[in-house]
């Protein structure tokens, strides 16, 4: 009974959350664009799609509250009780790396990046070179997210101030931008945004908040957040570094 009630409440929230998108699309279609929909997009299909989105959002958020959030926090607490920082850092790395390496958005961006880079002549213009570049880029981004979660977890342990570290990261990004090949700059900046997937974000947030509440002297608000911030800056740095130092190696390896 309780579950059904909370699901109904969440359904109401999901409807509210989706309403603005529907209004924006409706306004533009009816008032601004004023063109009939193409045959491939039937109104019924669109309505069905929206229904799926609402159902999906409702189940996803409820599922997070039941499963991912409590498990993430209890795992964080268990690591603190166990007192083994090495295992915790290993876990942090595995989580960052494992959730990024198969991320569909990253695969799409990496493939597009392969085409851009080969057209601009930085690597050989062949599909083999493009694929190998895309794969290397994916690995580098996944490695960077793993490193980012490790650094973020270390920060929670030591209580280092987040803003100084992130601003330091920005400064490094700006300096590297000056040195990196121009074609890679846009790709590098965007790779920071695509890494944080819908499942990773809640889990990593629960991990950070759980750690900050389990470790004495840490404030969940001040220390619990920030892991995602590292995961957005670190890939930029890694990809720019790769553009400066690693590009030649990939080009040599495939020729």
């Amino acid at each position, binding site marked *: 009974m309780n579950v059904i009630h909370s699901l109904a409440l969440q359904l109401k929230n999901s409807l509210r*959350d*989706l309403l*603005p*998108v529907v209004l924006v*699309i409706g306004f*533009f279609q009816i008032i601004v*664009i004023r063109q009939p929909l193409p045959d491939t997009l039937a109104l019924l299909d*669109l309505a*069905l*799609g*929206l229904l*799926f989105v609402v*159902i*999906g*959002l409702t189940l*996803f*958020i*409820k*599922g*997070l509250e*039941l*499963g991912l959030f*409590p*498990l993430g926090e209890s*795992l964080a607490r*268990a690591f603190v009780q*166990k007192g083994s920082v090495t*295992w915790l850092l290993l*876990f942090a790395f*595995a989580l960052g790396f*494992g*959730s990024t390496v198969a*991320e569909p*958005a990253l695969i799409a961006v990496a493939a*597009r990046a392969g085409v*851009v880079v080969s057209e601009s002549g930085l690597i050989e213009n062949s599909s083999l070179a493009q694929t190998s570049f895309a794969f290397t880029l994916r690995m580098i981004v996944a490695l960077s997210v793993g490193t980012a979660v490790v650094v973020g977890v270390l920060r929670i342990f030591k209580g280092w101030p*987040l803003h100084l570290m*992130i*601003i330091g990261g*920005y400064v490094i*990004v*700006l300096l590297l931008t000056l040195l990196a090949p121009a*074609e890679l700059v846009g790709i590098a*900046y965007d790779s*920071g*945004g695509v890494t944080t*997937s*819908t*499942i*990773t*974000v809640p*889990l990593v*947030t629960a991990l950070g908040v759980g750690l900050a*509440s389990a470790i004495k002297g840490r404030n969940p608000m001040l220390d*619990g*957040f920030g892991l*995602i*911030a590292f*995961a*957005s800056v670190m890939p930029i740095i890694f990809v720019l570094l790769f553009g400066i130092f690693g590009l030649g190696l990939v080009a040599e390896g495939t020729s």
Partner: protein
Amino acid sequence: MNMLTTFWDTLRDIFPIVAIIFGFQYLVIRKPIKHFLKVAIGFLMVWVGLSFFLLGLEQALFPMGELMASQLTSPDFLPAITEGAHRHWSDYYWVYIFAFTIGASTTIAEPSLIAVSIKAGEISGGTINPFTLRLAVALGMAFGITLGAWRIVMGLPLQWFVLGAYCLVIVQTLRSPKSIIPLAFDSGGVTTSTITVPIIAALGLGLASSIPGRSALMDGFGMIALACLFPIITVMGYAQIAQWRSNRKPQKEPFLGTSATKSHQGDTNAL
């Protein structure tokens, strides 16, 4: 058929994470999971929910967003110009309005942002309203995307914009209440995961291919980067406004502050 592939793909995405979590739980921590059934049902709901969500996006929102992006940037839709003349950037006003509104509205429906805002509301003890936080992020996102669209129309280098946004972030960081900073930095990263990226990408691509002299491949990139930076600025702005308002209240009723506002005050005093 399509449905099965989506469910399968989502399972493949979730699997590594589940494997890592359960692997560490049973091999390293070696303790049974509390309320195992509840957690398992939760994971099942996450999987089914995410699959339905993605299925719905692919069926309704993405084709719609792509269609509208290409319609709004097509020469038939834009005001007529004389042969050979250059289009003024303001001709694309509907594109900017679309970028702003679609950016804001899709951010409101972004699942990972909802997740982070729930957590933030929980641990802030009520000083942060989850929905207001999401509104602040949505505003920043909308502004970042609009600026990105304008940049593509003007053909200006991305670096200037990122540099400018970084400077704003640094200035804001120095002036905001300390307790909001980590959350603000996080909200930059969470906004671009599921709904927004494909629609922004379609808009960027449509713009870059309809404007002479822009390459779809080169100029299409970069919108996501700006969309990640501006939420940081608006969330800190929201905290500054909240702090300013709470600083005004205690002057009227100095002894009635709750413990939550007291700790908030303590934070601001520490600055």
